[in-house]
């Protein structure tokens, strides 16, 4: 199938190195300590953060650092065909783990020993790139909760179809069976916290694809910073400062 036309347009009209539209909102879940909705085109994710709070299960308590827990789920209505999504299936366990590991690398857990931070992410609408969207949403929610972090983690995916590296695959491109590289970085420190790939890629091409995904992460980081800044300004304004 032709995913990139010879004119250089993808199926949805983007060029190969263009991302989908990003929209984000903080404080979407009133009860949570911090929350965010993150949208990337038609992929929409809500994240809620609770904590730092007392460790619920004593046996998991860590004496020198905070316990970070993460739960990923997909809403039944998130895909085209509505079906019951069982909790704790392989895929969601894996993504939960991936998100947890990515977030743990940026949270200053040593400042909050013997406590627990819960991150809940739910996919409201899935259109490819849910993994990255979840990490971005979790980053925003953590920031909203005021949890001390070294930096925000941002993530973006890139693929390789029709011999062209493509940034930010949507569902149609994702299900083409080509390689799908998801990268998570700490943009200022320039460190990679997450790197996953499906399918196979020759090494030299992989490098260009990963480079593209990293560029995407950086662009998202810029966007997220602006959103956070806007939000802070608004809070400041409301306080009447």
């Amino acid at each position, binding site marked *: 199938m032709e995913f990139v*036309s*010879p*004119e250089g*347009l993808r*199926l*949805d*009209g*983007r060029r190969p190195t263009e991302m*989908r*539209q990003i929209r984000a909102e903080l404080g979407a879940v009133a009860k949570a300590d911090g929350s965010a909705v993150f949208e990337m*085109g*038609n992929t929409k994710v809500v994240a809620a953060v609770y904590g730092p709070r007392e460790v619920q299960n004593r046996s998991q308590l860590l004496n020198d650092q905070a316990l970070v827990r993460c739960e990923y789920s997909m809403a039944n209505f998130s895909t*085209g*065909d509505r079906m019951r999504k069982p909790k704790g299936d392989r895929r969601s366990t894996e993504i939960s783990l991936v998100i947890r590991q990515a977030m743990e690398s940026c949270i200053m857990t040593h400042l909050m020993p013997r406590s627990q931070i819960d991150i809940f992410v739910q996919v409201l609408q899935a*259109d490819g790139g849910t993994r990255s969207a979840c990490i971005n949403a979790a980053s925003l929610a953590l920031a909203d909760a005021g949890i001390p972090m070294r930096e925000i983690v941002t993530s973006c995916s890139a693929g390789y179809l029709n011999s062209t590296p493509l940034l930010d695959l*949507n569902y*149609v491109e994702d299900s083409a069976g080509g390689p799908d590289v998801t990268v998570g970085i700490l943009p200022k420190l320039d460190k990679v916290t997450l790197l996953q790939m499906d399918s*196979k890629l*020759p090494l030299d091409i992989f490098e260009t694809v990963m480079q593209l995904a990293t560029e995407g992460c950086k662009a998202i980081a810029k966007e997220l910073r602006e959103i956070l800044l806007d939000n802070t300004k608004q809070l400041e304004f409301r306080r009447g400062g």
Partner: protein
Amino acid sequence: MLHTKSFVKKSRAGKITKVVREHYLRDDIYCGASDCKLCDSKDARLTASHASPILVIDTNVVLNQIDLLENPAIEDVVLLSIVLEEVKNKNLSIYNRLRALCNSSKKFFVFSNEHHKDTYVKQMEGETKNDRNDRAIRVAAQWYQTHLSGAARVLLITNDRENKRKAVEEGICAETIESYVKSLGRPDLLDQLVHPSTEDVNMEEVEDLRPSKRKIIYSEHKPMSEITSGLHRGIYHQGKLRVNRYNPFEAYVGSESIGDEIIIYGRSNMNRAFDGDIVAVELLPKDQWHEEKSLAIAEEEDDEEEGVHLVPGSADDAPRTTSQCESETTLASSRPSGRVIGVIKRNWHSYCGSLEPMPLPAGSGGVAHALFVSKDRRVPKIRIQTRQLENLLDKRIIVAVDSWDCLSRYPSGHYVRTIGEIGDRDTETEVVLIENDINSRPFSSQVLACLPPLPWSVSPEDLSNPIRQDLRHLRVFSVDPPGCKDIDDTLHCTALPNGNFEVGVHIADVTNFVHPGTPLDDEASQRGTSVYLVERRIDMLPKPLTEDICSLRADVERLAFSVIWEMTPEADIISTRYTKSVIKSSAALSYIEAQARMDDSRLMDPLTTDLRNMNVLAKIMRQRRIERGALTLASAEVKFQIDTETHDPLDIGMYQIREANQMVEEFMLAANVSVAEKILKEFPLCSLLRRHPTPTREMLEPLLRTAAAVGLNLDVSSSKALADSLDSAVGNDPYFNKLIRILATRCMTQAVYFCSGDLSPPEYLHYGLASPLYTHFTSPIRRYADVIVHRLLAASLGIYKLPTVFQDRPQLTSIADNLNYRHRNAQMASRASVELHTVIFFRKRPTDAEARIVKIRANGFIVFVPKYGIEGPVYLNQKSEKGGGEWFVDEQEQKIKKMDGTLSFSVLQAVNIHLEVVEPQPNRPKLQLTLHI
């Protein structure tokens, strides 16, 4: 700007889901006019001017008039992305042609109207998809008009009346393709126009003066829904229709559902299907299974007689013997026959041929209807209309098929282009190339850019490269046909102190220059093989590679891939070594020179000694191979002597095989087998090998029947048994044995390439060579298969990584299929080229020659002329007095006798034949054989 498309889709399982997709609209899509002030004109291809308008064409125009669009006269065309998409959904081959046009130097510009913010239109309530797309085309045309605002004329070309009306209402200039082409004032373009079928029917009415005679010739095709349900219920069978190359009234449909071939006799049962079409077939009732045959013969009468042609090299080239049906009277009921009830997928393309001779109509310049006869006999005559009849009558032309109405006897088509005059050597050669789908275009600049800079020589890096062994000290030489420029194999043979021999085969290291994934590699894999015609060669790789950089010429250093054995004097292989190397050939010998050196007992120089040693080893290897059951098959290869000035053939004769040929061949076989073993061991699932299927008894039937007629009993139980009985088949006639071998060869199918993962190991067998494994390694300059094998071997030695293609088995299989296809076409083309030159040769010199009867027919016999390697019919009866006459045929005994008993001919008997070129119709020369008593 973002816009969301949402639609409801039904999945194959019948589930209904809502699909939501994003659709981005952009402001950075440019109009493509080179002097547009608003747009970025970096990629602009259109020149806007008032004289020639910018054409916006609609989908149906593209689908019907693609040949016209390919004409260089049609320029400045805007292709909307919606049009491309519709074309792609309707006809992929036209889409590919259209894409090729956009990439060529023609001024075609693709405008992505669907993603442009001003030209995107949303489907309105109650509007069908077609109407929406038509509207999108109009909106885009309008946008162009306002965007270029007077800088150029924009013309919407549409044949849809409604669309045109609406366009004019909206203030867009719109015309039909006919009126546009007429306004150009070019009659040759008008010929390329496809006329709508409604018009066609009208013309036929005019044509046929007796309306009562107008009847339905073919039955209506069943609607698609009925076919699918019929296929489901198993009453219809689906398959690809293959028309018998030698009898266009007989076709086969290989059906999976029935597990056997369904025979279709006669045009009416074929029901307008072409060769290569995917058709749905209904089986005829059993009692009609044989009846149809006689019907087919009756219909055949108006067809031309069988021509003289080259002797077939294998069963694939040979006609499906019609004599089969004689013996099949009892078997007839076992072969199902059927009739086509619908065509699922058409395989129409353009065909090469000429117009059927006809008197010129009184008034020239008007529209004339003519029948086109394709060179490919499998294709029926095609009706075309032309305004340049007198021009075309003596030309070879290309014609494309448009439609075939069930009221008309012949399909209707249109003229595409002229190749040249009939009978002209260049024209006919081009016809051969086109017919066999051979790309003879010069290599593109991208391909040539992949070549290393010239003059090339072995660099110090190559020499110091650890993977490359320096073998320049070895006395390496090559033995090839005289005048060979693309030398891809060399040999060496050194006596070792322990009495053994080190024998090496060094093959040009093509993969050092042809890297996977480059345009050069893509082109080579498409071409598949070099094609050798009588007077020219069409290379697989560009000339600098074939004749210089890779050619292992004498006294120059070249890169090679070597297979080196240590052999005992009894030709037992002790060890095998594979390495990339640098060699320096010391002599490029021809077969004749090599043979002369070996035969001349006075010569004792080292090179000659090497040659003699090798020859001794080769003889032992050959003997051993024959003992294993390898067949020594014979072919009637001929060789032309070509005049260097005029390129006309001066003389033809049989190709002589010398000991030196056999010696080189033996070592090449050994190298191929060694490499096959190595790569299969390393890559059991993705190696490219070559196999030769064991012929079935059925296939050998014609041979057995002929042999039985002369009282010879052949044992065909195994290749060994066959080889032995062929050896013992010696008659009192020196040529007898060779004749039997030639007959045996043509019963077998050709060897084919395959991917080792697709078959099980016992099927890897190469029957003819009696080798369990075989591949092609020794000619990478002229065969792409060898390039692949070189890569595999390099990977198995750990020199390079295995290219990614090899991990994808379906792709590898498709490469193997393409190689087989190209290989076969290349052979057909060389044969056709030889046939062509044979006719040219005999045109000036009618000759008498001795010939052998190979088959007895009802009205004559088929003879084989060994000297010229040709085969053709000799008619004893005149065509008109069919069946009767003074000759009596005994089919069982394969004898033909004169009624008065004065003359009788039997199979394999020698007769004297007179060869002459006759022109029964002007410009249609053909070779005729007559009995010369």
